[in-house]
């Protein structure tokens, strides 16, 4: 198995409860299942502590209930992103709780903490990149394939040399 495949399998074992269960049940591996379970639980607890710190009042009001729900949530949904991963995790957890039974006061507190958390997130701005092409020499498809790569982009192309008229070639 290549290093990349090994690392992918290990990462899945650590963060994907369903994959872990199946893998440890079906594979005759030398991997110590207890070590994997302990590490996976440690990762989940780390997430829980970060989310708890971001939703302090809710956890103070109803800690055991939220702890129990977080275990269900955390085992079914992976953490994503880099710098804001815990804030995004907390917001996703709040959405997970939408269908759970909470009294109206707890619900209001949770909504307030959600509002506060959303406000604390930095706004995303478009990054504007200027570039120009000689349209006589390049097709739109060639330009887009060069410039957009795999990132999501909004590309506006217009002809600047045609006086008083512009045309969006692709949105």
């Amino acid at each position: 198995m290549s290093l990349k495949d090994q690392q992918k399998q290990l990462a899945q074992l650590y963060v994907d409860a369903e994959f872990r269960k199946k893998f440890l049940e079906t594979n005759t591996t030398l991997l110590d299942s207890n070590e994997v379970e302990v590490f996976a639980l440690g990762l989940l607890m780390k997430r829980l502590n970060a989310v708890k710190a971001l939703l302090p009042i809710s956890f103070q009001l109803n800690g055991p209930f939220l702890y129990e729900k977080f275990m269900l949530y955390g085992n079914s949904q992976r953490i994503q992103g880099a710098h804001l991963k815990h804030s995004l995790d907390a917001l996703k957890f709040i959405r997970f709780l939408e269908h759970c039974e909470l009294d109206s006061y707890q619900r209001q507190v949770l909504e307030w903490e959600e509002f506060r958390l959303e406000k604390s997130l930095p706004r995303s701005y478009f990054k504007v990149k200027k570039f120009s092409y000689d349209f006589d020499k390049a097709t739109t498809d060639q330009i887009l394939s060069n410039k957009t790569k795999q990132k999501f982009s909004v590309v506006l192309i217009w002809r600047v040399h045609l006086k008083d008229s512009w045309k969006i070639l692709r949105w």
Partner: protein
Amino acid sequence: VNPPYWSEHISFTKIEGIEIGHLSPIPYTQEAIEVFSENVKTVKQSISTPLILENISYLVNIPENERTEEQFISEILENTDCGLLLDLTNLVYNASNNGYSVERFLNGIPLERVVQFHFTGGIYKWDKFIDNHSSPTPVAVWQLMEALIRRTPVRGAVLERDDLNPDWNDIAIDLEKAKRIWQK
């Protein structure tokens, strides 16, 4: 800021969009040594400040390992010509959790490459020592620090206490202890 060096862990945290959320051990294989060393070389081309590499704590032993931890680290340090940021707590906890001696590890690494120490205390949970930077530095780590300072010149040490609501008194006591060991 003009740091004399900067550091990174010998670990991985993400692969093909799967975010682990914590430092995880790389399989100790020949391929991993080659890939890691190449990655370090690429980084060094962009950042001229010397890079030092840090050992992590780990709970999972990967069966496909072809090297011991100290062999793996030593080969990477040799290939990349990097210094070592030796996390003393990680070393003590790894040795205890995985049943080897600290001395075996120290005998297997190029001690002359140690540039800096990290030290802290963690917790004992689920039958394992877990380095979560949450408690005073344990005796075994102080003993190791004292022994190592006698064996190799080290440029600095950092106390890691980044848990929530730390006890400031504990932190002050640990810093004083470290200073005393340093000044002996």
